[in-house]
């Protein structure tokens, strides 16, 4: 069974077609890069998988089942914005996560917070944007999930921290899990990808094994991406 299977998915906002009849399947245990420029449909696709948007047509299956309570337990999702209750302290948020997610590991979360230099007593509203992002990443990685979906995990992070964040992701996701990373910053991330999916103007224009693509095009994914989307 595939980790995620997307069949003929379409979504419009008003007259604007954001996803146009997309089909895609993602194998279990792979690290997949969802690559595309901003505003090309990456986030829309991810939001539909996470039940934050309702598709106009088509369907999404997670481990063979439609999106719902079960898929939400399987997927650990890092949104591109801070979704935490800003009035809570870090400690309270950890309690919240362990209340709702059976697969949340509080002690791992505390350890990650320590590694990331975050203070458990601090209020979220008092944290900088970068700290909030790190906190969310720690929470997402502290879940023993089957699928991790990370929407632009490097978006607001300065280049010096990118490697550190990537290492944290690599060393902390559950072994054997599927990881989907959406990004438009490719050079830093491509070394960890098994597969790439190029998404452009609401359509999937390329899916490939990363190393096969490198050897057939004789170039880095970053370069292939730039060539494909030269503007």
């Amino acid at each position, binding site marked *: 069974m595939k980790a995620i299977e997307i069949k003929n998915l379409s979504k419009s906002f008003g007259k604007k077609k954001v996803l146009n009849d997309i089909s895609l399947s993602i194998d279990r245990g792979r690290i997949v890069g969802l690559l595309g420029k901003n505003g090309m449909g990456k986030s829309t696709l991810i939001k539909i998988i996470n039940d934050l948007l309702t598709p106009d047509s088509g369907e999404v299956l997670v481990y063979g089942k439609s999106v719902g309570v079960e898929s939400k337990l399987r997927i650990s999702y890092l949104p591109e914005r801070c979704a935490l209750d800003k009035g809570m302290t870090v400690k309270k948020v950890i309690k919240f996560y362990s209340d709702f997610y059976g697969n949340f590991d509080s002690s791992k979360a505390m350890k990650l917070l320590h590694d990331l230099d975050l203070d458990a007593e601090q209020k979220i509203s008092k944290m900088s944007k970068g700290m909030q992002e790190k906190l969310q990443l720690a929470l997402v990685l502290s879940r023993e999930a089957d699928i991790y979906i990370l929407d632009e995990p490097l978006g607001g992070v300065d280049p010096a921290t990118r490697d550190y964040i990537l290492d944290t992701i690599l*060393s902390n996701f559950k072994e054997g899990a599927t990881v989907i990373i959406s990004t438009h910053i490719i050079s830093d991330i491509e070394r960890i990808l098994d597969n790439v999916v190029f998404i452009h103007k609401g359509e999937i224009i390329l899916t490939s094994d990363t190393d096969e693509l490198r050897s057939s095009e004789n170039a880095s994914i970053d370069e292939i991406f730039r060539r494909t989307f030269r503007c």
Partner: protein
Amino acid sequence: MFSPDNNSPIYLQIAEKIKSDIVSGELSPGARLPSVRDLALKLKVNPNTVQKALAELEMRGLLFTERTNGKFVTHDTGLIISIKNDYAKNIAESFLSSMEKLGFSNDEAINYLSNLGGEKN
């Protein structure tokens, strides 16, 4: 420290690196390799990529798996020596062809090399 670049298949670069470590003796026959996850972390790549590189080496007989203990370098020193010879042959051939472009005949090139060796000693 070794770090793969993004321009060619990463698993091949990793396989090549481990192969040259075995040939140079940095990884001795029978030595145990770090776990896939550890290697992945050290190289900052995805565990699946390391897995693929190791599978490649295993296919060529340079590594073997002990079910519970992990992966080990082959005890077959004959194989290691033959690969070492392949490397040496490649280097020698490319030296000779480069010298040829400069106008050296094979004998002159070999002479030059042994003189250079003499100077060094």
